[in-house]
């Protein structure tokens, strides 16, 4: 899943990125709020899920994001 997420990051940011579970999405990848929203929507399309706003605010690192996506996919 991390590879898929990395390639979505690359599409949204239009540059190569290296990520680990500890990568901070805002701090390390330099995303602003608009970038985060576009990225979240791309993730939602890819996995065919909707991530509710309160879940998004809990996500800080790539690891957080992977856990949120996994939980939402299980719930679906």
């Amino acid at each position, binding site marked *: 899943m991390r590879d898929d997420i990395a390639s979505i990051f690359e599409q949204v940011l239009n540059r190569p990125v290296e990520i680990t579970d500890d990568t901070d999405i805002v701090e390390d990848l330099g995303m*602003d709020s608009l970038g985060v929203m576009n990225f979240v929507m791309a993730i939602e399309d890819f996995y065919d899920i909707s991530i509710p*706003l309160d879940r998004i605010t809990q996500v800080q690192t790539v690891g957080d994001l992977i856990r949120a996506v996994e939980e939402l996919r299980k719930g*679906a």
Partner: protein
Amino acid sequence: MTILAKHAAYKTAYDMVRNMGIEPLSVRFDDVLSPTEGVLAGKKTILLGTNNYLGLTFDPACIEKSVEATKHQGTGTTGSRIANGSYDGHLRLEQELAKFYGRQHAMVFTTGYQANLGVLSTLVGRGDHLMLDADSHASIYDGSRLGMAEVIRFRHNNPDDLYKRLRRLEGVPGDKLIVVEGIYSMLGDTAPLKEIAHVKRETGAYLLVDEAHSLGVLGETGRGLAEQAGVEADVDFIVGTFSKSLGSVGGFCVSDNPDFDVMRIVSRPYMFTASLPPGVIASTLEALHQMQIRPELRANLMRNARRLHDGLTALGFETGPEANPIVAAVMPNQEIAVAFWKMLLDAGVYLNLAVPPATPTNNPLLRSSVSAAHTIQQIDTALEAFEHVGRQLGMLSADKRRVGAAS
């Protein structure tokens, strides 16, 4: 370090603007002369950013009613309707709003912001699903946080994306409420309401439309986008404000929902705040009346809107997709936006400087709002100022000018 140090990033950004010698947040009007003119630093200035769509703030009939009500009933109600009771005016305004919209029920709030807080937090609760357009106004986002519903954003003005998200909720228990705006406040674009109403019918969701910027502006009788799009029957709740086309302050919600009145005893932003003062209620009632008997106001408004929108586009500025009373010019970056805004002010034109994250993209905007009360000369003066400043800042090429002049 103080308790407010957590907002340092915002302070730094604001200080950057201040270091350029301007304080957009402390524009002080020494006087306001009319719906379209104010005095700034001793100089007459065209007001092109006040949301005063029908120019009714100085309407003699509205002022007279307001003065009369203030003299008879005092300056304020000093309490909430649930504790202190309602005045006759509150009930009459609710009746008139219901009648105007052809609905069973209406409820008046103390501000438009509170109307969204009060309605959204009451319509959906824990286990329900709130579907918000990503570019929704802050009051919609804040209202969504006041309730306990799950909040899902869909791509701005994208009915397919909305449909996809509702489809994912198929079979999931809980009410689903779609929230869109008639006219979006930054770029002046309208929601594709016909298509959204279709999605609503397909998925069994409820639909709320915030007509804050479209009341008195869109539709044959000024009822807003739902009227213009011919889908009023699909709209379960309409929310709006008195502080734009009706020239006062306050908010409302209208609906045919048979349980509507229960909101009066559960909606906290309605219950725990002072009700609108008699003078505000009286001018709002009169403005609602004037709006209905003077359709020419709407015609003048749209004429002015088209003139500014088409004029800016012809000059080579990037504007919103539709000629509506909100006309925004997209700026390439914050430095140019701030300088442009300041130079327009020096040239006697006041409008709004909007910077991210309040704007839908990463670009700052110079946001105008046109009034029916603007003269054609005022619109043309503003266009000339835009052209002059745009040239000085190197934003307009000579080529574009020729294309614009020829079209």
